[in-house]
């Protein structure tokens, strides 16, 4: 019995500065699922997350993406967020002069406004911050600092998952959340993601390494190469990749392309 479809991507093509990166992506994600997207450098993994979240640096050339039954590609990035789409950035941006607290309160209240809810009270907000910080062991001091400013690599990634916990997205895209993390930080971040997992939300995990998938167990693994999803399988596909590397994939699909 299949669960409800959350995201449905069909024939998605996208380019940056006139260069085509995504060359026809098909991807269906249902509630409760975890999808891993793997692939060599430059295959289009980060572009896919940028296009889905509406980064204005990228141009959609063809295809469709339906999220919660709505046309995702027509929505402003902020409305995609309000609809429940969240991106944990590969490189979280430092915003000097904007405190984490103000940033988070603005984000949360804009979402509540979008959903027709009253703004959160100051005391409830602080309580929520405290509660969600615990998910990833985020230091209280970091919350009073400027967004990501002077955070270590691990703190930045923890901060991403903290924001995810605050906003409770229905679909979270984790873009190389494991990069730059030591083993302890990796465990904390992955456990944080698992705590937030429910039957009604879904996760896309973009990664180079099988290691992260030991912690966040995927239902499906997709291999993205040269802007296309070339293979889809179960968790064992990641193990095969870890063992054999991308060379075989490259050989196989480079030859196919030449034929």
């Amino acid at each position, binding site marked *: 019995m299949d669960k409800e479809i959350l995201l449905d991507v069909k024939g998605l093509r996208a380019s940056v500065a006139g260069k085509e990166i995504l060359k026809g992506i098909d991807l269906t994600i249902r509630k409760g699922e975890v999808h891993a997207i793997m692939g060599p450098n430059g295959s289009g993994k980060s572009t896919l997350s940028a296009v889905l*979240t*509406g*980064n*204005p*640096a990228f141009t959609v050339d063809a295809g469709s993406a339906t999220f919660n039954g709505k046309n995702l590609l027509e929505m*402003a*990035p*902020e409305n*995609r*967020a*309000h609809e429940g789409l*969240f*991106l944990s*950035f590969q490189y*979280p*941006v*430092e*915003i*000097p*002069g*904007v405190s984490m607290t*103000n*940033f988070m*309160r*603005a*984000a*949360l*209240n*804009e*979402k509540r*406004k*979008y959903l027709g809810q009253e*703004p959160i009270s100051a005391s409830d907000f602080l309580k929520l911050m405290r509660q969600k910080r615990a998910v990833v062991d985020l230091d209280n001091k970091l919350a009073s600092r*400027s*967004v990501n400013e002077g955070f270590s690599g691990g703190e930045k990634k923890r901060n991403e998952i903290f*924001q995810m916990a605050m*906003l409770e997205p229905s679909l979270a895209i984790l873009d190389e959340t494991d990069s730059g993390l030591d083993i302890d930080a990796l465990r904390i971040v992955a456990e944080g993601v698992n705590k937030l997992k429910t039957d009604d939300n879904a996760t896309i995990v973009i990664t180079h390494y099988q290691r992260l998938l030991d912690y966040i167990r995927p239902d499906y693994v997709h291999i993205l190469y040269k802007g296309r999803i070339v293979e889809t399988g179960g968790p064992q596909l990641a193990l095969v990749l870890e063992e054999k590397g991308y060379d075989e994939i490259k050989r196989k699909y480079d030859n196919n392309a030449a034929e």
Partner: protein
Amino acid sequence: MSHFKQFTRLIEDYPQFFNGDRKAAEIESFSQSLLADDDGFIRRFGSAVAEMMKPDYGVNVNGVTSPLMPAAAIRRNIPDFAPITITCVNDTYHIPHLSTDQRVKCAVYDADNFPFPINAYHTPSHFNRIFANKILHISIDGGNNDETAIQINNILAAAVDLAAFRRVFVEIGGGANLELILNDSSDSTPHNYFASQFVEIFLNEGASLNLYDITDTSDTTSRLNEMKIKMKRNCRLNIFSLSASAGKSVNIYDIDFESDNSEATINGFVVGDGNQRIGNATFVNHLSRHGKSNQNFKYVLDDASHGTFYGEIFVWEVARFTEAYQSNRNILASPDARISTEPQLLIYNDDVKCSHGATTGQLDAAALFYMRQRGIPEAVARTMLTQAFVGDVIDAIPLLPLRDRMRMLVEKRLYKRSSRPCDNCRMACDTINRDSKE
């Protein structure tokens, strides 16, 4: 001379106003300053001043008094802050009654009977000297370091297009501390206003001054403002200049370090939009040893607004062990906004630490997208980033009620465009409500 056509005609039309040797000398000195343009004022700000002069303003040649409007004055009060309040309606100063034994003395003189020299330095002060008929004189006795706070509310309110001329002379006694707030505003009529202002301040040995120069007027108001400040030994000067809403405005801040060991900081912040033209020029003259100066000007320009910054640090040969810094950072928030910046450092001895720099850019696109991905709409995100950009200028304000007031003014000004609801806001709303009720 072509920049000042209207006023030239005025000079011809009202010969009785310009009678007498003093006026003749002032007009002569003004013409000379225009022709010589020694400080490059006309070259840099001439076109902005020409714009200011376009309307055919009325000038109060007969010395008619503008009455005090208490409601308008109260509206500009700052919560938790009770200064001596002087209100200037157009060109009429209304001073409070102060007991004669107080350390603070305020008086309004006719220019003809002013017991001190009526100086002029740059083009705006030469120009002001011709037309200003009254001079506000403030003196603070030296000898103890109690804080004195004086707020001058400059209000433009008239039934016609009007040019107003104001002149202020301040003397701060040795060791005295003064907080001086100049708050410029206009009524909400569509009339064109022009304000010429010259403020001359003397700091005696060990005196300190925090000067707040706030322009919060209207698109139809022009302002040509010059401030000359002279410091003796061991003085401390802090200037905070805010052009929150100023149709066309030029400020000159000219500071002389006359004796050793003094310090001056100028923090300036400009928000421009529409077709506003806002300029600032600084002349920091290190004429003595061990002086420290620090300038930090930030501009945020939107729409087709134009900003100009000219900053000059002059370190004379005698001014050894000087430390002088200057920074001008600008954000152009729209493709039609323009900034012209000219940081200047002129050093005539070897024993100094100096630096200057200017940067101009747009809001960080990566930060904007990051905020939008978290659900913060673009307009709000832009405003939050702009606020963050100027945060350090506001944090540098020493007095807490004024810092809050400035932060509120800036936020109110920035959020004017983003129609942001109150829910995310951390402004002191009781202040705003109090403001809007009156």
